[in-house]
């Protein structure tokens, strides 16, 4: 995880910072808008979760909070250690219900696109059921740390690509997974309001357009 962040920080160190020039000295203010994601993917080479979420995205202070539902859309063969001598191999479906929080920071341009780093967490419960038996998998309270890159696409659409530590108690599935999430913000007028910070009547600038 630390190498992932270190690589990103070193890589972005040599890029231009879009908010560090004189024209873009900003004062932020709380500016929440509704957000929705219908393409929330968490995966690695051994597993895949698809999901959708709804919540708010604060365009001023650049954080988001969403109610999230993810699931594995197929029965997967999984291994669960029952005791030291027995391993159970099930056909399993999983569901993950969580509250997601993330904070974006550190503006920079990456290949002509506004990008930021983000860190966050998913607080939730991982549920599951098996084929051929009525028992369900043990509910697992999960705190999933996430970090990565957030790209600001047009009309306040965010593409978040990152890495998370998603514990699932499965022997054959590594806990480290990739996150790929496309978040739409629901705002009538996507243009941000820009105001002069020297104006005494000014409440502040929300965000500066690229």
């Amino acid at each position, binding site marked *: 995880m630390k190498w992932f962040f270190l690589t990103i920080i070193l890589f972005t160190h040599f890029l231009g910072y879009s908010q560090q020039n004189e024209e873009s000295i900003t004062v932020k203010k709380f500016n929440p808008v509704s957000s*929705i994601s*219908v393409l929330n993917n968490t995966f690695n080479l051994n597993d895949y979760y698809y999901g959708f979420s709804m919540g708010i995205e604060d365009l001023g202070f650049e954080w988001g909070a969403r109610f999230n539902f993810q699931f594995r859309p197929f029965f997967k063969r999984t291994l669960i250690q029952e005791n030291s*001598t*027995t*391993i159970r*191999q*099930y056909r399993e479906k999983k569901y993950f219900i969580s509250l997601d929080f993330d904070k974006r920071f550190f503006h920079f341009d990456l290949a002509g696109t506004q990008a930021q780093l983000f860190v966050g967490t998913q607080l939730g419960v991982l549920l599951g059921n098996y084929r*051929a038996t009525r028992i369900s998998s043990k509910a697992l309270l999960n705190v999933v740390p996430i970090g990565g890159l957030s790209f600001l696409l047009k009309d306040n659409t965010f593409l978040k690509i990152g890495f998370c530590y998603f514990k699932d108690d499965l022997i054959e599935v590594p806990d480290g997974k990739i996150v790929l999430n496309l978040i739409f913000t629901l705002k*009538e007028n*996507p243009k941000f309001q820009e105001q002069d910070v020297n104006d005494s009547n000014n409440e502040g600038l929300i965000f500066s357009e690229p």
Partner: protein
Amino acid sequence: MNHNFMKYISIFLALITIFSCTVEKDCNPSSICNPWPYDYGNLNLKLTNDHNDSILIVLYSGYVDDQEVISEVYTQSNQYSFYLPVGNRYSVEVYYVQGSVTTVALDGGRLNQETFINCEETCYREPNLNLNLRKL
């Protein structure tokens, strides 16, 4: 509401609609049609057995929790089939023993009668339930 967002949602819903259902409306008079339902079908198991070891298979009626054992057999093959009444749910446990560790693979499902319509006639396919119980 954001125009582009509505566009993405529309495309997404259209894709779901396109791929959500297929309807067999073909009429092929030369195709073989069995108009009688089957009473029995095949429960086919795929196993892992590279060294032709003796592997225990336990077949249950219903869910494995019900503990209604129909059959316990050993096989040295990497596949096995049962011929069973149609319409019931079955569960299968396969015991892979390696040293002191036993991996119990479990899977199951309902052995359903499959039908299709050809030239407005109901045709029956031989029921098959295929379970992949290979060891991970």
